[in-house]
């Protein structure tokens, strides 16, 4: 928001989809949101222009599992600008079966302080006897 005078957004809080405009008060530096119908819209807009964040969901390769990949997510949201870097990190690793929901796959992805965790159970492929 530092260098931009006005940002236009669509509110995601409800199907109304208000067209929000965020501008900066020249004197106070405060963020002014217009176009919102409810306070949730203003909160969303402020957060979205100062620190937009997203949860990333993807999959990670599994060795020796009943499935070739296990689904994962970032435990909390991460800065939106880091999505593709986080994907790169997720794509570069591989885990061994079994995997359980909540298992930490990557402790601190891209120095965000956020862990990537498994969202599915994948059993180990039964050993041949």
């Amino acid at each position, binding site marked *: 928001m530092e260098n931009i005078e006005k940002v236009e957004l*669509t509110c995601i809080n409800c*199907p109304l989809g208000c067209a929000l405009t965020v501008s900066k008060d020249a004197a106070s530096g405060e963020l002014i949101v217009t176009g919102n119908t409810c306070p949730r819209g203003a909160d969303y807009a402020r957060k979205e222009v100062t620190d937009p964040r997203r949860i990333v969901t993807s999959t990670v390769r599994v060795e020796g599992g009943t499935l070739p*990949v296990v689904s994962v997510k970032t435990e909390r949201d991460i800065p939106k600008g880091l999505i593709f870097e986080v994907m790169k990190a997720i794509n570069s690793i591989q885990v061994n079966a079994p995997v359980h929901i909540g298992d930490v796959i990557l402790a601190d992805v891209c120095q965000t302080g956020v862990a990537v965790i498994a969202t*599915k159970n994948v059993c180990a492929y039964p050993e041949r006897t």
Partner: protein
Amino acid sequence: MEQHDIVIIGGGPAGLAAAIAARDEGAEDILIVERDHQLGGILNQCIHNGFGLHTFKEELTGPEYAQRFIDKVKEADIPCLLNTIVVDICHGNENESGTKIVTVMNKEQGMIQICAKAVILAMGCRERPRGALNIPGYRPAGIYSAGTAQHYVNIEGKMPGKEVVILGSGDIGLIMARRMTLEGAKVKVVAELMPYSGGLRRNIVQCLDDYGIPLKLSTTVIDIQGKERVEGVTLAKVDGRGKPIPGTEEQIPCDTLLLSVGLIPENELSSQAGVEMNPITNGPKVNESLETSVKGVFACGNVLHVHDLVDYVSQEAGMAGKQAARYVQKECESKNADRDISVVKEEQLRIQQNNMIIELKAEQGVRYTVPSIIHIDRMEDTQVVRFRVGGVYANAKIAVYAGETKMMELKKRIMAPGEMEQIQLKKDKLQELVEQNILTNQITIKVEE
């Protein structure tokens, strides 16, 4: 023959929730039949977050949401037949009136016939294929329904394409636009026939806008190029009736076309079993207990009508499970030979008096209602009625009429076909209206602008 009180067909979110609720209501003998090798249904491939906000007050991914229910089913020790397909549901023989025979097939046991007192249909839905749209052009490889692509990417870890056009802006289409992009594909455009998206606002922002993927409304695919693999598609704008407008054509090179053009409840088994269908939902007609036109056969989840949120599927399925359990208990009671004839007669009389059957009618912007029939004596204190509207309405009202009398209205800032709506009917209120002769046999639900 193997016997069970309740056989649940489908181990997805609906079947799981129905099983748990039936057990909570006291049903001991339940069997879940699932065709896949695992429980959880389509949630297993919906690895994105956004599930469970209503149910668990937290945001889960599909597999996590499913696992919470799977764990409960395991705790309750409810048996499941996996890798098993239901071939047929039919009525039992005359000696066991009211029972159903469910024929299933699997590798280990071959064909098995299961006798059930009640059946809960929870088979879910399938995607509308290209053929249903009659999109002209060649028939090369590279045309997938969005769900098939989702299976490839999220379950099998395979890429079905690299340069992608998506037709249909329902949530699966939007989710797949982001998913393919994150996996390195170039999603060139999402085209939507209607002048509005069928998907959630949040998905448009977070799946398309975040990645600069254009959404073209009132646009469709009018030609597919490529004889072996897709080489491109032609898009065109459509007029108000959905007809392509000449001169608006735009050719887009791509190797993949994903279709997210609607879901169809999978009711072939239901039809075979003689269940009466609602042509609007493509699902069974049900009463307040989510019981179909065939006594003892209940339906819930996407086989009944396509839902927008899985939380509502779980709620609805819970109701079906509970009612199926009660049905089984009642059947047992009425078969109890020791009962005093006079008590039975008295009960029958009471039922006749109170058994007011109310038909729910969808009109004027309301496309359908689930349920479509309410027996007032059997309804819960509060009855949820779910439906969808046929267009986008801003600042409109949902009005409910008993005969000519408006019995309630609900202001809505926005309604759209992509989202399910609901109203709640109170039992005491309905009884009151009946006594006043205001409510006779029909409740009408409509949109008023």
